């Protein structure tokens, strides 16, 4: 059953609607009518429901903030999810967003972060906030995001007819818990506080005045504020539970009132109490016998916005560094040459810079040599456990197929990589190895050209064994002659850590000379 109002008899209003009639609703006859969408009234709520009071208190607090604190209510946005409470967004004359079930808080997160000027308030029900949207609730609290979340808790899913929910007291009855609820409810103030909310309070709708004051405080609180409002559900929850049993179901107003009186009898105000102890106690019949109300937590610490903005300077530094590197780049007027599709396989173990070496070749070809280049790396299980592989394809024409089909060039820096890749090398292909790390077996392929260089040793002697890959690159550049030496050097200078540029260029040249000598 759905409680959405169906107005099938009337002609669709959309066809006949006259512009500018909203203003007609602001009559001045009611102190709040400028903040209510009169054209949408009457509301859909049942008689005896607590939502009217919750809405009134909310509007009173806004009016007070407007009058006393100079708030511009154009800057207030209300976000709701789905459910009876969710309808509040539709009745307030403010920027208001009636989103989908459970997602009011992330929507509000986007609004608030994108425009911190906005005062963003989420008003939704217990099912919306603690059930389907529970994850968003705890995470928004954890971020100490500067929004206010008001949860109107009526202990059940009212709009769909009174099903058990995450706030239904233990042993209480509901349509889907007719034998008594065997689950335990959330204590929402405790959940909010434990998750990182910096303002936490609870009232029942009987405390209209306190609620008004609390909401003023919550709305002006810098950081995540949470207010739980206990409200009677005169139609659904009261029908099943001791608080409303025996009362005339035809007289919902009376039933709501009686439930409210019950909440008054069992209510106990205890400000500053640890939220853990801010319980809602029930007896063995599921009858509520104590509700602790009050303001439980008020802390001041940087909210999400402030914490985020503290990082802007660092971000600017990063940017300057990246921009400087780009500005410094020289344009090499190297004449584009014709290069057939050339496939290069690089292999070694993690930490040798197999990925960076592949990228340096690709960048040299693509950016400094005006060629096409496509670099991919092996992901998946083989990327762990030490083995690393990367692939580069270079060509003077577009590279249609981005995977290696039969590599003609190979840079191998470990025995494992040798074992894995050597058989895939094309006949007459070129295999370059770090000859201190790869020991060629007796049956090593004779249909390929194999050249070696003690790259790691050279790099170590130069003072940094992590530059071994650069030695291999120099060696490869000279032997293969696909990419120009100058292009490679520019690519290296841009890719390695600034402090190691000179060292890397030195060992690159050592490798290059050795390549010329051997190649």
């Amino acid at each position, binding site marked *: 059953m759905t409680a*959405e109002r*169906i107005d*099938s008899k009337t002609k*669709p*209003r*959309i*066809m006949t*609607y006259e*512009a*500018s009639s909203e203003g007609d609703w602001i009559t001045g006859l009611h102190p709040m009518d400028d903040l209510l*969408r009169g*054209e949408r009234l009457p509301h859909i709520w049942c008689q005896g429901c607590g939502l009217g009071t919750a809405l009134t208190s909310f509007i009173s607090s806004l009016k007070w903030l407007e009058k006393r604190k100079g708030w511009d209510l*154009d*800057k207030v*946005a209300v976000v709701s999810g*789905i459910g009876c409470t969710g309808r509040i*967004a539709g009745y307030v004359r403010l*920027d*208001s*967003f*009636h*989103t*989908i079930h*459970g*997602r009011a*808080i*992330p*929507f*509000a*997160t*986007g*609004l608030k*972060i*994108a*425009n911190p*000027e*906005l005062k963003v308030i989420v008003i939704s029900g217990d099912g919306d906030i603690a059930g389907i949207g529970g*994850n*968003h609730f705890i*995470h928004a609290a954890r971020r100490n995001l500067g929004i206010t979340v008001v949860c109107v808790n009526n202990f059940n899913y009212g709009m769909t007819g009174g099903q058990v929910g995450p706030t239904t007291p233990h042993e209480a009855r509901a349509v889907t818990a007719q034998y008594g609820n065997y689950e335990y409810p959330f204590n929402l103030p405790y959940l909010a506080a434990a998750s990182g909310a910096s303002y936490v309070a609870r009232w029942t709708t009987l405390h209209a005045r306190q609620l008004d004051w609390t909401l003023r405080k919550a709305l002006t609180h810098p950081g995540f504020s949470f207010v739980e409002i206990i409200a009677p559900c005169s139609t659904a929850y009261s029908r099943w539970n001791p608080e409303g049993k025996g009362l005339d179901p035809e007289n919902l107003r009376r039933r709501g009132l009686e439930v409210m009186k019950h909440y008054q009898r069992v209510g106990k105000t205890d400000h500053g109490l640890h939220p853990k102890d801010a319980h809602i106690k029930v007896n063995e019949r599921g009858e509520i016998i104590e509700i602790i109300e009050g303001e439980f937590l008020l802390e001041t610490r940087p909210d999400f916005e402030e914490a985020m903005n503290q*990082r802007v300077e660092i*971000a*600017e530094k990063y*940017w300057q560094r990246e*921009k400087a590197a780009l500005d410094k780049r020289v344009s090499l007027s190297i004449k584009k040459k014709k290069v057939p599709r050339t496939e290069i396989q690089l292999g070694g173990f993690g930490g040798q810079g197999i990925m960076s070496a592949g*990228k340096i070749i*690709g*960048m040299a070809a*693509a950016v400094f040599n005006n060629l*096409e*280049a*496509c*670099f*991919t790396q092996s*992901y*998946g299980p083989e990327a762990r456990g030490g083995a690393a592989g990367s692939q580069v394809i270079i060509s003077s024409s*577009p590279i*249609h*197929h*981005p995977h290696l089909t039969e590599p003609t060039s190979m840079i191998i820096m470990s025995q494992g990589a040798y074992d894995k890749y050597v058989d895939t090398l094309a006949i007459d292909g070129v295999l370059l190895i770090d000859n201190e790390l790869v020991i060629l077996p007796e049956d090593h392929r004779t249909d390929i050209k194999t050249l070696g260089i003690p790259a790691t040793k050279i790099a170590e002697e130069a003072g940094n064994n992590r530059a071994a890959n650069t030695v291999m690159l120099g060696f490869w550049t000279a032997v293969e002659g696909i990419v120009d030496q100058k292009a490679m050097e520019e690519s290296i200078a841009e890719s390695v850590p600034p402090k190691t540029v000179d060292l890397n260029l030195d060992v690159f040249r050592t490798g290059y000379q050795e390549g010329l000598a051997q190649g």
Partner: protein
Amino acid sequence: MTEQKGSLTGEHFMLGDHACAEGAILAGCRFFAGYPITPATEIAERMSVRLPQVEGKYVQMEDELASMNAVLGASWAGVKSMTATSGPGFSLMMENLGLGIMLETPCVLVNVQRGGPSTGLPTLVGQQDMMQARWGSHGDYEIIALSPGSPQELFDLTIRAFNLSEKYRTPVLVMTDAEVGHMTEKVVIPPVEEIEILHRPLVSRGDLEPDHFRIYRASPKGDPGYVSPMVKAGDGFRIHVTGLTHDERGYPAMNPEANELNVSRIMQKITANQKDIIQLEKEKLRGADVVVVSYGISARTSLWPIDQARKEGIKVGYLRLITVWPFPEEFISKLAEKVQAFVVPEINMGQMVREVQRSAAGKTKVIGVHKPGGDILDPRDVLEAIRQGAGIRQEA
């Protein structure tokens, strides 16, 4: 200097995912909400570094439901916004994609597709979410989806996705894949002034009395492709929007007539503007016997077998869907009258091929080349399908 702060004009050797982020920044994206997922994570990583440099905001949400939802909220705050994900996250985003469409919210959702179903193949390529892109959220709607085949195109199409989303006030999907996202190639970032950047039609305070404003106004001239101007939260219009069926004011309207108007509006603004939205790359279609119809990475890898087939004397045409949704139904239907066969290579067990079949309506043969995710297509399979389409018997 005319250069916009934060643009990396120049030539780069760049990862596809990073190119996507750079495209977004240039398009004016200043809000990103996301959740880590292979192979789309690098987009979030890059955005988290870049956005604070350009006065943008990055937030890592608790899941993909929240990510897509936060993107909508940010868009209503007047900020161009984006999220990026892959298969499992895409499934979660379907819920709020529907809300975005219903609220007519400009934003961009990038799906770096991986092999599925379920957790599937996190690091390996797939094109298996193409139908989910079209039909994944409940209810009737139209969607715009673009499919790039290289990092450069991922950059270009991310900008176009923002432009289309702003122009038509609707979420736009960039349906890329693990292959393109994780590939590093040359990416040329042009000077800012050379890039066309569109902004949503926006009514600002002072343009109009708030009372006269209709957030979902129908075209005053009866134009079905009309896009109602938007406002942003905080501008004094005191708007109300809802995921419920709504009227021009954005108020719930619970009746079939209102629903018809509502649904028609969100569908027609896309169907009536198909000519502007649909982009195709056409090559040698005239006189072709076989036309390869493909998109994204599969279109790109089909170019080699197409070359081969041409060398064998087969007249092969090439039709690449840069815009995959809305589907170029009319174009393919007309083309179907002139060719012997369509060959449709894609990395799934047959998704867009159904659209080709539907559009061809039996007028010509449609041969799909399919494999579930995990690897790009073997060019030999595509070549074989082209030969088959041309009526050449397969060699034993």
